[in-house]
């Protein structure tokens, strides 16, 4: 290093170092570290792999490691369960690759006016989709948004119990439990074994005067449309609890916005709106509600507000009520905010602007048609039962293999040999469903893809 100036470190050049030290008035870099006592100094080189100095060499090294991945461009994938393969428009990649956005951070409105406008547009477009007047800046992911929303409801109602469906993702439930533990107890509500819908009798028996919120999802984790939304919200409201609905926005061109079936708070996942999956790195969440001062006071996130236009045109933007956030509240904060997933918020704004109302409607209808088609194809295979629940599905559905004599694990291994990622194995998560898997079909799948799946499953089972 001493003999070579590193391209990322201009002042690694000996001449520059000498000049800088001279200007500071010290002889040696060591003098600048005088504050760190000798006993705390590391007096040996870190034992790290040798540096790969050239960009070309570095690229080859990392690409070589990554080349042992097989992604969804190589394999036909039917995996969903919280991260979904949707088409990513080229304009989305173009915008989120722009260095102006990619390397921005905490700059305020005066230096980062465009960043704030894009975020306000994200909030606005999401507001139209979910039918709410307040939408947060992005959170880490849907599960985090759901956990924060549940605790918002606890603080608003002054209660400390939240009800969630038994049949939500085990990972999401784990995340909610971890987060809510000091502040709330989480109880699960059973589902109807025929329809998958929330069991309203069980819900009624568990809602009480300590219940802050009832949380449910639409479409549900298992893919079907929860038809009891209005009834669930009513049961919650009668007990003085809030109704919180988690949504996958890719369904909202065809499904009612949760505001129309009683939701007080909406949350969900924005990854379907223009984000590559990135093994889960494409996730980002949001929280939304009506414009209620008491609720707004409980948002943990940044909320970008529109300001009045200045004379001569142009909008202004700023963070509303910053004193709500953990940055200001410190030890009195009931939640925390940090570096979340804003680049994906900007990208979702681009996606929704490209798609427009027609695009979202066509997307939703197309998802339902392809799913229905696939379910019928799979159901025609001996021993395969699909759908498992007598409810309409959007893009995911449960496939049961109990009568095939094979386990999901065996089937998925055989499908993998045929270049197919089969559905998510549910046997550990929801053992009562037997040998079942959660399949996901989206607009990326062609008729041939769906036939390939059905043919392969048939072959694997024969």
């Amino acid at each position, binding site marked *: *290093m001493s003999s070579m100036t590193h391209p990322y470190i201009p002042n690694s050049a000996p001449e520059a170092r000498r000049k800088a030290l001279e200007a500071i008035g010290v002889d040696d870099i060591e003098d600048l570290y005088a*504050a760190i006592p000798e006993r*705390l100094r*590391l007096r040996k080189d*870190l034992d790290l792999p040798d540096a790969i100095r050239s960009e070309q060499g*570095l*690229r080859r090294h*990392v690409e070589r*490691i*990554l080349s042992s991945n*097989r*992604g969804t461009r190589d*394999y036909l994938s039917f995996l969903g369960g*919280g991260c979904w393969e949707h088409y990513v428009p080229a304009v989305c990649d173009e915008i989120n690759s722009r260095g*102006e*956005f990619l*390397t921005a*951070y905490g*700059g*305020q*409105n*005066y*230096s980062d006016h465009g960043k704030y406008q*894009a975020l306000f*547009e994200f909030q606005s477009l999401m*507001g*139209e989709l979910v039918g709410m007047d*307040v*939408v947060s*800046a992005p959170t*880490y992911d849907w599960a*985090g948004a759901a956990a924060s929303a549940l605790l918002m409801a606890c603080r608003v109602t002054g209660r400390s119990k939240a009800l969630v469906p038994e049949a939500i993702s085990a*990972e999401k439930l784990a*995340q909610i439990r971890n987060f809510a533990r000091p502040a709330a107890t989480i109880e699960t509500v059973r589902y109807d074994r025929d329809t998958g819908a929330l069991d309203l009798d069980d819900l009624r028996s568990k809602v009480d005067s300590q219940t802050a919120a009832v949380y449910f999802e639409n479409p549900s984790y298992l893919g079907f449309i929860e*038809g009891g939304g209005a009834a669930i919200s009513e049961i919650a409201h009668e007990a003085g609890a809030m109704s919180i609905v988690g949504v996958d926005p890719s369904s909202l061109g065809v499904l009612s*916005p949760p505001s*129309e079936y009683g939701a007080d708070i909406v949350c969900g996942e924005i990854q379907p709106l223009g984000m590559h999956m990135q*093994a889960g*790195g494409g996730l980002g969440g949001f929280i939304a509600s009506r*414009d209620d001062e008491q609720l707004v006071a409980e948002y943990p996130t940044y909320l*970008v*507000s*529109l300001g009045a236009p200045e004379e*001569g045109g*142009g909008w*202004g933007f700023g963070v509303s009520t910053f004193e709500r956030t*953990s*940055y200001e*509240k*410190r*030890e009195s*904060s009931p939640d*925390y905010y940090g*570096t*979340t*997933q804003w680049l994906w918020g900007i990208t979702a704004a681009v996606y929704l602007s*490209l798609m*427009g109302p027609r*695009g979202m409607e066509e997307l939703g209808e197309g998802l339902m048609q392809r799913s229905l088609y696939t379910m*019928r194809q799979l159901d025609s295979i001996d021993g395969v039962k699909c759908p498992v629940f007598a409810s309409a599905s959007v893009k995911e559905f449960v496939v049961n293999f109990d009568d095939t004599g094979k386990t999901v694990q065996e089937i998925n291994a055989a499908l993998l040999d045929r270049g197919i990622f089969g559905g998510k194995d549910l046997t550990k998560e929801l053992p009562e469903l037997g040998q079942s898997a959660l399949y996901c079909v989206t607009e990326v799948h062609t008729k041939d893809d769906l036939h390939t799946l059905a043919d392969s499953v048939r072959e694997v089972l024969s």
Partner: protein
Amino acid sequence: MSPQGSGYHAARWNEPLITEMGGDGQRGILPPEVEEKIASATSDALDAIPAHMRRKTSPALPELSQSQVLRHFVRLSQMTLGADVTPDMSSGTCTMKYSPKVNDALVRLPAVADAHPLQDALTLQGTLEVLHRFGKIMGEISGMDEFSFQAGSGAQGIYVNACIIRAYHESRGEGGLRDEIITTAFSHPSDAATPSVAGYKVITLMPGPKGYPELDALKAALSDRTAGLMLTNPEDTGLFNPEIDEFVRLVHEAGGLCAYDQANANGLLGITRAADTGFDMCQFNLHKTFSAPHSAIGQGCGAVGVTKELARFLPAPVVTFDGDSYDLDYGRPDSIGKVRSFLGNVQTVIRAYAWVMSLGAEGLRMVAETAVLNNNYLAEKLSGVRGVSLPFPGSDRRLEQVRYSWEQLAKDTGVSTTDLSRRITDYGLANFMESHAPRLVPEPFTLEPTESYTLEELDEYAAVFEEMSREAYEAPEMVTSAPHKAATAKRDDPPFNDPKQWAMTWRAHRRKNLNT
């Protein structure tokens, strides 16, 4: 020297909101058509939606052509001063170093971008190998034994630390007894907020005369209720607490654990290590010290490292390697559970891995030394600027950042640090970071030049402060009415905090302010 950007003017497009744009029938993109065979066989698909669940009115999204959408967002990007556009030494505590382009190219590979998190581990070997290798690298850098990259930010990484402290005491039957976490006033607000979220009462130590808390303050806070210590070092001030090992020893003696928030680690790589100081756990921001782009506030990663005694508490899953292949271990009965879905921001870890591989041990140390060198060089320049002072005079040299004060300038001229933070954007530079809460330093500003800039760039940046100071003394109106050449003008009395006027969405604005 004429300051950088004196001829600058930002793009000021006065761009309408996207919700105000467009015309009926324009399309930005067409989703893949449903093929005829599928469409005809499933024409009844939507009929299965329960009537009240069927959307009645189309979402009021704009209808725009593709190039309109592209131009709109490109224009917004042009009104955003990312670090690719302007040297960002202004965002102290954020470590706005150069984010190498080659690392972006690597994570755009389909093998990374289009991988599903639930793929069979056998098909994710590349990603898992990087995670595993980087865990070893971070272990060497920190001295810790095991790492998790699940947390999506520094704050979330710190939260994981708080959860691990909680799990540790619970595992020893002391969960309810030890309910206090100690932090310091100049540590990041997350060091106070996240233990509070985890259920702890938080005690904040105030700085002593040298800028960091004195041992006596810690001793007074310690008791059999102490669960742990969570802090940065250097703190926001850039001052390193040289008694940190004694702090750690005393907390251990009281039965607590010590968590090192390494948000301010850029001057410490290869210089001093968390584990050698006695810490039990730590967290690093990969989007700061390890060069992954800050991404307009995220895709971040809080890399959490722990000693082997605490490894069983790490969030699940963890990456394992049997000498042959990599796997994900979900069976972690003592784990704190999950804090972020799936594996976190994997792409951020891959970028950080590539960055370390481009540097090696010697390079990392060069990063640290140069960050400290550049910071002291800038501090030397700024110490000559009229109206600027360094709080805690007589204290040690700052390491990688400095919290300065415009107190004298404000007294002399009535110009505030907030005015100056707006004014600096007229020079093509990002608003500077003033201070986290609590605002202990009067009229604060916090700068961190990192290792990424040349002496000329540092000189030019300092010259802007020289010039702004001159303006404040000679033509204060120029500063207080700023910005004049930024993408947007100053707005007095913004409506953002007034419940009657604030508008977090266009539909709220229409309803509240336009009555439509």
